[in-house]
C-alpha cells in the first residue's frame, strides 16, 4: 500500500477500517462512480521529499528580485515594515488552522480579535460599523457600490473619478457588466490632481445613486471630502482609501460624513506578497448595517451572562439568504484582518501617527529635492506619501534606474494612455533619505 507521511492510515489501520466498513478494498467504496470516469495512472508525478521541495522553492524565490529601500513603487500596495509579532501571531496554530468561527464557544479568540478589528477600522475611518473583511480593496469597492445600490432608491448610475485606482474601476466594470448599473466618469483637475469639484454638481444628476472618490487618490492627492460631501447631498458617498495609513495624519472620511468608507488595508501588516493576500475593509453608518456585505461580529452574552462574541446578522449572508444575500462572499480574509489587528495594536495611537508622519515627511523631502533639482511634480494638491512627477523619457529613467537597482515607481501610461512620461512615486518609512540623492540624479532634467 502507498504510504505517505501526511496520511495517518497505516497498514494495520487500513485493515481495521476496511473490516469495520465491510469491504475488501477501498475501491468498493467508489461503486457509485461510473467506471469510465476513473483514471488509470496518477495524472501527476511522484512526491518530492522535503529537501527537494525546499530546494525548489528557494530556487524559485531566488529567481525573484526585490528591494525595500530602493523601491518607490506604490499604487495601491505599499511597502511598509511588518513587525515580527504580526507573523508570529498569525502563525499560531490556533489562528492559522482554524475555520470560520461557526461554534463561538470554542472560537472566542478569533471572534474577539475580529471584533477588535472592526473597532479599529471604525476608529480609523471615523465610522460606526465595519465588517470583518473582504477579499481586497477592489472587490470591497464593488461591494460598496452594490451596497449603495441596495440602499439608494435613486437611479442606476454610479459616478467615479478617473483618479480612482484603475484596477478598482476595471473590477467594477467586470462586475456590473452583468447588471443594470452605469458608470459616469469624473475628470481630475490638471492643476491640483483633485477631482473637478466645480463640474461635480452637474455630473451628479438624478440617475446617480452613488459617488465614489478615492482619497488619497491614485495620484496620491488628498481629496477635499468636505467639499465633495456638500455637493453630493443625498447621494451615497463612498470614499475609497488604498493607503489607510494616511488616516492617521489626515482627517478621515467619516469626519466629513462619508456614507461608506472602503479600501485596502494591506499597509497594516501585510507584505506586498505579489498582490495577495490583501484585505478589503468596508465601514459604514450604523443605519446601513443591514445592507453590509460580509461577516460581522457582535457582542453578546453567554448562558451565564458573561460577555461573548458571535458572528451576527448572518441573515444577510449567502448561507441563509442564498440568491438574495448581500454578497456571495463566504471565505474572507480573516487571517489578514488578524494581521491588521496585531499591527495596529503594536503601533497604537502614538506609533501610527509617528509612522504616518515619517511617511509624509520622507515623501515631501523627496518631492522637495526633486523640485529643487528641476523635476516637475505634476499636481499641486496636498499629498500623503505618493506623488506624480514628469520625466523627459520614462524608458530611459527605468533603464537608468535598473542599472543601480532602483525601482523608480509606476509608469502611469500603463493605466492612462495619455499620461506619457509620468511616474507615480511612493515613499514610505522603508525608503531611507540617504538614497534620495541617487533617485534625484536619475530624474534630474539634464540626464
Amino acid at each position, binding site marked *: 500500500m502507498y504510504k505517505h507521511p501526511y496520511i495517518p492510515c497505516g497498514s494495520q489501520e487500513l485493515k481495521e477500517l476496511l473490516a469495520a466498513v465491510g469491504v475488501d478494498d477501498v475501491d468498493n467504496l467508489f461503486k457509485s462512480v461510473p467506471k469510465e470516469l476513473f483514471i488509470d495512472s496518477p*495524472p501527476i508525478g511522484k512526491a518530492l521529499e522535503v529537501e527537494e521541495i525546499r530546494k525548489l522553492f528557494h530556487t524559485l524565490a*531566488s529567481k*525573484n528580485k526585490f528591494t525595500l529601500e530602493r523601491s518607490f513603487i506604490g499604487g495601491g500596495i505599499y511597502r511598509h515594515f511588518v513587525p515580527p509579532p504580526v507573523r508570529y501571531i498569525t502563525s499560531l496554530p490556533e489562528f492559522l488552522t482554524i475555520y470560520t468561527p461557526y461554534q463561538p464557544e470554542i472560537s472566542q479568540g478569533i471572534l474577539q480579535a475580529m471584533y477588535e478589528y472592526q*473597532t479599529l477600522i471604525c476608529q480609523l475611518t471615523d465610522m460606526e460599523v465595519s465588517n470583518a473583511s473582504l477579499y481586497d480593496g477592489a472587490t470591497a469597492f464593488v461591494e460598496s457600490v452594490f451596497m449603495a445600490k441596495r440602499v439608494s432608491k435613486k437611479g442606476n448610475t454610479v459616478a467615479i473619478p478617473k483618479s480612482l485606482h484603475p484596477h478598482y474601476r476595471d473590477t467594477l466594470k467586470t462586475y456590473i457588466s452583468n447588471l443594470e448599473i452605469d458608470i459616469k466618469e469624473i475628470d481630475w483637475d490638471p492643476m491640483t490632481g483633485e477631482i473637478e469639484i466645480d463640474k461635480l454638481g452637474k455630473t451628479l444628476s438624478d440617475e446617480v445613486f452613488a459617488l465614489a472618490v478615492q482619497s488619497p487618490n491614485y495620484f496620491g492627492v488628498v481629496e477635499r471630502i468636505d467639499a465633495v460631501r456638500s455637493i453630493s447631498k443625498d447621494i451615497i458617498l463612498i470614499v475609497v482609501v488604498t493607503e489607510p495609513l494616511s488616516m492617521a495624519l489626515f482627517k478621515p472620511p467619516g469626519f466629513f460624513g462619508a456614507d461608506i468608507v472602503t479600501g485596502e488595508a494591506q499597509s497594516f501588516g501585510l507584505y506586498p506578497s505579489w498582490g495577495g493576500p490583501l484585505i478589503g475593509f468596508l465601514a459604514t453608518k450604523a443605519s446601513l448595517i443591514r445592507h453590509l456585505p460580509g461577516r460581522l461580529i457582535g457582542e453578546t452574552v453567554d448562558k451565564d451572562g*458573561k460577555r461573548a462574541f458571535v458572528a451576527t446578522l448572518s441573515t444577510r449572508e449567502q448561507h441563509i439568504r442564498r440568491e438574495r444575500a448581500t454578497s456571495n462572499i463566504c471565505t474572507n480574509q480573516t487571517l489578514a484582518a488578524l494581521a491588521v489587528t496585531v499591527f495596529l495594536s503594536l503601533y497604537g495611537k502614538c506609533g501610527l501617527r509617528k509612522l504616518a508622519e515619517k511617511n509624509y515627511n520622507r515623501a515631501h523631502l523627496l518631492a522637495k529635492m526633486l523640485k529643487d533639482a528641476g523635476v516637475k511634480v505634476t499636481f499641486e494638491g496636498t499629498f500623503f506619501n505618493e506623488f506624480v512627477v514628469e520625466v523627459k523619457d520614462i524608458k530611459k529613467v527605468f533603464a537608468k534606474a535598473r542599472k543601480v537597482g532602483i525601482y523608480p515607481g509606476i509608469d502611469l501610461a500603463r493605466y492612462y494612455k495619455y499620461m506619457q512620461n509620468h511616474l507615480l512615486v511612493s515613499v514610505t518609512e522603508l525608503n531611507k533619505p540617504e538614497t534620495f540623492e541617487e533617485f534625484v540624479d536619475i530624474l534630474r532634467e539634464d540626464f
Partner: protein
Amino acid sequence: MKVEEPLIFEKSKPGKIGILIEEEEDSFLQEIDPTLLREEIKGFPELSEPEVIRHFHRLARMNWAVTLGIYPLGSCTMKYNPVLNEEVAGLRGFLELHPEQDMEDIQGILEIYWRLEQLLLQLTGMDAATLLPAAGAHGELTAIMMVKKFFAEKGENREFVLIQDSAHGTNPASASIAGFKTREIKSTRSGMLDVAALEKVMDEKVALMMMTVPNTLGIFETQIVEIAEIVHSKGGFVYCDGANFNSFVAKILPSRMGIDLMHVNLHKTFSTPHGGGGPGAGPVLVKKELEPFLPIPRIVKEDGKFKVSCDFPLSIGRIKSFFGQTAVIVRALAYILSMGGEGLKRVAEVCVLNANYIRRMLEEFFYLPYKSDSLHEVVFSDKFQREKGVTAMDIAKRLLDYGVHSPTVFFPLIVKGALMIEPTETESKEELDRFIEAMRKIAQEIEENPEVVKTAPHSTPVKRCDEVLAARRLKVRWE
C-alpha cells in the same frame, strides 16, 4: 488554567508603544492645511510588545484548532496543514514582491503560478485555468460571469442558472450577482439530482447548470454524464463546484464527467490553512471553448520566459486588484508536489474510507436521511433525537465538551437538522474513534439525561452564546 482576556482597548494605557520608531529630522508637517490634519485617533490602543503578544496568545488559547483534534466540519475539508508549506510560503523572495515590479524580476513567482496552473489542469483534465479568484465563491462568480459573457458574445440571451436544492449558498448568491435568475432542482429520495426534473426545466434560456460533485450530501451524482449531456444538448454549460474535490482527486478526472467549468478550493483539497475563515483561493478551470473569457491578468510562457498578459480581448476583465492570493498559491503548489500523484489518489481513498467508517459506526445511533453510498462525508440528522427535544445544534455544542469539534449543522438545507460530517484523510482511526465514541455517548445521554446536552457546552471558555441577543443589540464595536 483559565484564560480571560479583556479587549485590547480595555488593556490600553497612555504612554506605551509596541514598536521602536526614531523621530524624523526633516518635518514638512507645517505645510498641511490645518482643516485636514487629524487629531489623535480616539480610543486607539497603547500597549507594549509583550502585552500585545500575550493578548493575542491568550486569545489563541480560546480557539480550537486542527492541530488539536478532529475538526469534522462537513464541506470544509479541515485537513492537516503541513508545516513545510508555511516555511516555503514565508520566504522573503515571495513576500516582498510588489505586483508592479518589472516582469524580469519576478520570474520565480510567475513560474509558481504557471506550475500550479499546469498541475491543476492535469488533475482536472481541463484546458485552461485562472488562479485569480480569492476564494471558492469568487471562483464561482468568475466562472458564471464567463458564461454570461460567452452567451453575450454569441448574442444569446440566457437568463437562468439551475441549482441543486442541496447546493451551497454561494452557488445561488454568485449566480444572482452575475445577473442570472436561479432555478432550483430538487434531489430525489436517493439524494441525487432529479434528472427528470432537470430535463423538464432545461431549455435554451438556461445558461448553466451548477453541480456539486459529490454533492453536499457526500453522494456521487451517478448520472453526472447524462446530466451533462442533457445540459449540453440545449447549449448550456455544466459547472462543477469543486469544494469536494478531495474525495476524487487523482482518482477521477472531472473532465470525463462532461464538466465545462469548475473551481477548486486551494484551502480545502490542497490543504492551505483556513486562517479562521480565509484567505483561501478558488482557481477556475475551463474547457477550451471558454478560455478566451478567463479574467485578466493571465500568466503566459513565451520562449522559456514567463510574463503577465492582459491582452485577451474577450476576457471578462479584472475580478480583483493585482493578482491572486499568492501566498496561498505557493502553499498549494508545495502541497501538491509533496503529495505526488499516488499520494493525492490516496487522499481521495482514505478520506472516503474514513467517512464510511464514521457512517458505519454511527448509523445505528443517528438517522441517515439518504442511504446512497457516501464518499468523503456523511450527513446524519437529529431526527431520532428531536423526539427528546434535542437538536443537531445541541449535539454539536455537546461535542465540544468531549474535546471534539462539531460537524457542520443545519446544512445542507434539504436535511432537517443536518449533521454533516467530513473527517478528511488526515485523521487517524484513533481520532475517528474518539469522535465516534463522543457521538455515541451523546446519543446515550440524550436518552438518559437530555438536559445535559441541551445546556451544553459546559467546559468551554464561554457557555452557549446568545445569538439572538447579538442580532438584536447589534453592538459590533467597542466604545
